[in-house]
């Protein structure tokens, strides 16, 4: 589904991704772990199409297409979804309207009928139960005045509504209490399916107690320095990122 080859990306002339290789197949759940500033969000944002990052080398194929040539909205319509580490507050834009406009643009692309306000409400209400969100949030401005936990659950809600093929979650688990964390994990687990791939970017091993990844990758200083199964997360927990870096180059690239 996704093939990242030797991806280099810079911001303001400063190289952040220094040759990332990663292959993700439908049905898989990958976890990317890495310390502060290692480039996790950069990778997520580049995949979602943020133009403040400049790709200087490498390529990314999504379902055989050159992902990097697609506009962010084109990517979204083609099934790519990124849950933001810091969801953006947009005053004055009604959440329900926004979600319906987003869903309809994707449905249209998929050749499905667009939903009117009433049908959409039925659709979204089910999904809100999944993330245990108050329906009243739908009538508020996007993320405005939401608590940290509400924002993160909101991202899961959007993912559940938009039903992407490739979901990239950028630290959706950070800053959550254990109850919210379980809700986020439940949302992710519910969405796991044979025709969907999920990349869970995280700082902490904790979420992996609730979401069992097929593969774990360690991103340090713009490169994936280790890849392995779920046990790698435990090793990381014990040894820390410093222990990983030493094994560097020899083990990359991996994961099929």
């Amino acid at each position: 589904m996704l093939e990242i080859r030797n991806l280099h990306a810079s911001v303001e002339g400063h190289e952040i991704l220094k040759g990332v290789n990663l292959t993700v197949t439908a049905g898989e759940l990958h976890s990317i772990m890495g310390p502060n500033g290692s480039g996790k969000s950069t990778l997520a944002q580049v995949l979602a199409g943020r133009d403040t990052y400049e790709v200087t080398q490498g390529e990314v194929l999504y379902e055989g297409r050159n992902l990097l040539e697609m506009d962010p909205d084109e990517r979204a319509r083609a099934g790519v979804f990124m849950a933001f580490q810091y969801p953006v507050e947009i005053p004055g834009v009604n959440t329900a309207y926004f979600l319906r406009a987003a869903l309809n643009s994707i449905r249209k692309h998929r050749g499905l009928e667009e939903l009117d306000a009433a049908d959409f409400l039925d659709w979204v209400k089910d999904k809100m139960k999944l993330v245990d969100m108050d329906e009243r949030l739908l009538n508020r401005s996007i993320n405005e005045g939401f608590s940290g936990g509400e924002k993160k659950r909101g991202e899961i809600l959007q993912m559940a509504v938009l039903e992407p093929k490739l979901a990239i979650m950028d630290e959706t688990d950070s800053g959550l209490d254990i109850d919210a964390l379980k809700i986020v994990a439940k949302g992710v687990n519910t969405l796991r399916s044979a025709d969907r791939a999920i990349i869970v970017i995280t700082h902490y091993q904790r979420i992996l107690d609730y979401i069992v990844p097929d593969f774990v990758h360690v991103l340090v200083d713009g490169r994936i320095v280790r890849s392995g199964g779920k046990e790698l997360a435990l090793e990381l927990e014990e040894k820390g990122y410093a222990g990983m870096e030493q094994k560097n180059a020899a083990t990359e690239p991996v994961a099929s």
Partner: protein
Amino acid sequence: MLQVAQKTDDYLSRFAQLEARLAGDGAALLLPIRKKAIERFAQLGFPTTRDEDWRFTNVAPIARTAFGAATRDGEAVEAQQLATSALMQADWPRLVFVNGHVAPQLSSVGELSGGVRLESLAAVAHADPEALQQHLARHADYQDHPFTALNTAFMEDGAYVHIPKGVYLEQPIHLVFVSTADAGPVVSHPRNLIVAENGSQATIIESYLGLGDGVYFTNAVTEIVVGENAVIDHYKVGREAQQAYHVGTTQIHQDRSSNASSHAITIGGALVRNDINTVLDGEGAQCTLNGLYLVSGRQHVDNHLRVEHAKPHCDSREFFKGVLDGHGKAVFTGRIIVRKDAQKTDAKQTNMNLLLSDHAQVDTKPQLEIFANDVKCTHGATIGQIDENAMFYLRSRGLSEPAARGLLVYAFASEAIDRIQPQLLRSQLRQRLFDWLPEGHRLQDAQ
């Protein structure tokens, strides 16, 4: 300069004709005021950008155009031409003016209860001029404002609205000023007088519309007198034609414990200047001056506010928002004067601008003159662009670039539209906003 002086002379000679025509009419009672005003105009001439109040707005195009007097061709306008734009479907009491003259066949005053008067000012000046004497031209200052002087000298028609003591008028009153400028440049000087006696309440909507594509000049003045404990909501919707010039003053005088709001919405016109002035002349009076301007192409829109706190314990709130595209230019001046006695004044001013193009320009400045010492006065102005983070967020969920941009502009502007109370007017203006936005029709149900 020579040329401009000549145009001033045009107005002076035209005044002589008017004077001759009015002699013997009941309306001659107003002649002394007209004379004073034209004399003052002769002294002042048209303002230039050297005048502090006109620094960012160059009215030379108005000064140098030879405008003919607008003719009384009210019959040329059909009700259906105004159908949607003038909210003809509303069963509000309505006076329609075409090129400055009342058009009875388009108007519909209906039965007004409680002794409310809604009449053509010209008719009142003719038949009952004493009714006007107490307030007409007593509030809108023609000593320092050349256009107000010009209007006062030439005022012919407009609305006279009188709300008697304690009367609450449920339906808004709609005053529609239509210009049809197909036969050469014309000028009209609409003049309105709205008097709300003590304890009364009413909503007044003034709509300015252009039907033709030609050049015309609307030079309007509205005086609003808000009695003790009275409540007036005033809306001025400027949708002049593309090549139109509009200079207008809304002058509000507020008595004790009165509450006035003014909303100035400007969408059309080539060069628009709105002067919105209020004098809080009684303890505990409150005013709210709201506004929205949508400026594109080569439009120039200047909102010039002046709030005078003359008495203690008055509150003023100013909230103006603007969206600028193309080579559009906007000016916002918020002058707040707090007189020596006006202790416990609470004044707040906000002006926010959203620039959609690199060529658009805004000059915004507060002007505070505070002579009292126990005063709360805050002001803030912003000039911003579309938030790229928000754009990316929306697009990353599948919204196209124009749809995302339209949604963000809509969100910005709708904050001003949401403050409009009459539901019909609010939804009409929301519609105009959709029309104005790229791909705005898709946002129909964004509210």
